[in-house]
């Protein structure tokens, strides 16, 4: 299991950047062939550093013991290197136009005049857990920390589009942010939603994360929130919303962020993707947070196995847990329900009665019956990962 490298790693601090080489007993060294580092970026805590320009920072798993992920620990993922590092709110405007009656140019104060809406929602990178794919795939080598659970607040996209007067014949709505490509030939990061999706009540232009302004690296001053869908659509440092009368065909929709057009979004491992569709709603997942992988437990001492579960916009119906590698399963106790877009915490009391190695597993099912596979589903971009994870512990 690769992810235990993130919790059991020696590291050396040097000038704010921490270098950490995998140093985990009992794990084959070649599994950790890639360098692992920690870094502290502005307004962020010590995060697992994937890349620095543009930044990709992963959340250490211990933050998921809390139901809400603090702003400074929420993962960071930018695509093109000219990212905003300074925003003057007296000049920043959100432009809304295209196939609309009016062209709007909203200041932050204008944006805040719409009804304020707030809810808690999981934000998760499409490629979360990509490093677990086998065979391995190209791309950001995330462990399980490219996600978080945040209380967002902002204005409904629908209210903004209503104010602009969305005209008949609109098919897609595109979203652009302040980040810019390093060369004119590099496609700017622009995403789109079908117009029916864009008009759903729950889609926000959020200007608050957990009651505070957004950190610059998480999309200050405002970002799109598409709850239940992967974060590729949650455009950061939003600056332009455009209603389109023809399907949007930008690179980041037409070529990138696509999944196989099969019921599972998967194809045989190592094969080539043929027919594809844009990635969209999140798969159902659960994760054991405590005990951490490779923990040592004591015989007859009770422990509480604890974790989280979430799905793409449907409440978690149940979580079942196995302490014997999947042979027998029992229901976990679900924690406080924080809404259908939030993750839910679960607990499972356990008293190991004999020494030995134990494999802990958890499996979540949502309210429409979507669950998690025992074997990893494979696609060439490393998306949709939701395999039932195994936490290995030793009881002495």
């Amino acid at each position, binding site marked *: 299991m690769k992810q235990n490298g993130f919790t059991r790693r020696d590291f050396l601090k040097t000038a704010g950047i921490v270098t950490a080489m995998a140093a985990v007993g009992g794990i084959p060294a070649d599994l950790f062939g890639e360098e692992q580092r920690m870094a*502290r970026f502005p307004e962020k805590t010590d995060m697992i550093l994937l890349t620095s320009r543009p930044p990709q920072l992963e959340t250490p798993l211990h933050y998921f013991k809390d139901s809400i992920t603090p702003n400074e620990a929420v993962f960071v993922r930018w695509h093109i290197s000219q990212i905003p590092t300074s925003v003057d*709110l007296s000049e920043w405007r959100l432009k809304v136009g295209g196939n609309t009656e009016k062209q709007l140019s909203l200041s932050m104060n204008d944006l805040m005049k719409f009804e304020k809406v707030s809810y808690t929602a999981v934000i998760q990178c499409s490629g979360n857990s990509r490093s677990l794919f086998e065979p391995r795939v190209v791309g950001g080598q995330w462990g399980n920390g490219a996600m978080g659970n945040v209380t967002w607040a902002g204005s409904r996209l629908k209210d903004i589009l209503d104010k602009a007067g969305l005209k008949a014949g609109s098919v897609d709505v595109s979203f652009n942010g302040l980040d810019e490509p390093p060369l004119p030939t*590099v496609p700017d990061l622009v995403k789109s939603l079908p117009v029916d999706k864009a008009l759903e009540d729950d889609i926000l232009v959020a200007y*608050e994360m957990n009651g505070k302004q957004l950190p610059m690296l998480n999309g200050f001053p405002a970002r799109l929130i598409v709850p239940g869908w992967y974060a590729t659509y949650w455009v950061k440092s939003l600056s332009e919303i455009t209603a389109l009368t023809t399907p949007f065909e930008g690179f980041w929709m037409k070529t990138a962020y696509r999944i196989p057009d099969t019921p599972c979004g998967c194809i045989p491992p190592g094969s080539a993707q043929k027919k594809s569709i844009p990635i969209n709603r999140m798969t159902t997942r659960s994760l054991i947070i405590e005990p951490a992988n490779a923990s040592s437990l004591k015989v007859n001492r009770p422990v509480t196995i604890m974790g989280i579960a979430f799905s793409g916009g449907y409440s978690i119906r149940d979580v079942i847990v196995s302490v014997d590698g999947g042979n027998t399963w029992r229901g976990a106790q679900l924690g406080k329900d924080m809404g259908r877009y939030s993750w839910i915490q679960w607990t499972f009391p356990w008293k190991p009665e004999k020494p030995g190695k134990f494999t802990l597993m958890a499996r979540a099912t949502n309210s429409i019956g979507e669950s998690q596979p025992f074997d990893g589903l494979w696609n060439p971009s490393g998306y949709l990962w939701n395999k039932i994870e195994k936490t290995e512990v030793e009881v002495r």
Partner: protein
Amino acid sequence: MKNLTSLFLLLAVSTVSLVYAQDSASKDMVHSITLPTVKVELRAGEGKDETERYCGICHSLDYITTQPKLSKAQWTATVNKMVKVMGAPIPDNEAKRIIDYLDVFYGTGK
């Protein structure tokens, strides 16, 4: 009634604006950060200079070092994507040297 509504709206707006008013050291409306510089050292060898020079135009070199070991076909596809899709200005002969370097030092050897 209309005036009352306006007053309420004004109050509501003032409240939410507080989040911004409290922000940061600067009293003005500017919010800024300074990104750290992270040094990444590629493995020494034939083709390292070209790899640093061309790949580093658009992204930090940890985009290379954090990848799993890739096959030569995967590295070739990646470099070709950078040239053909992203428009990286890499001459053909240099692209070939970069692919060879990545294959030798960051590849599976397959």
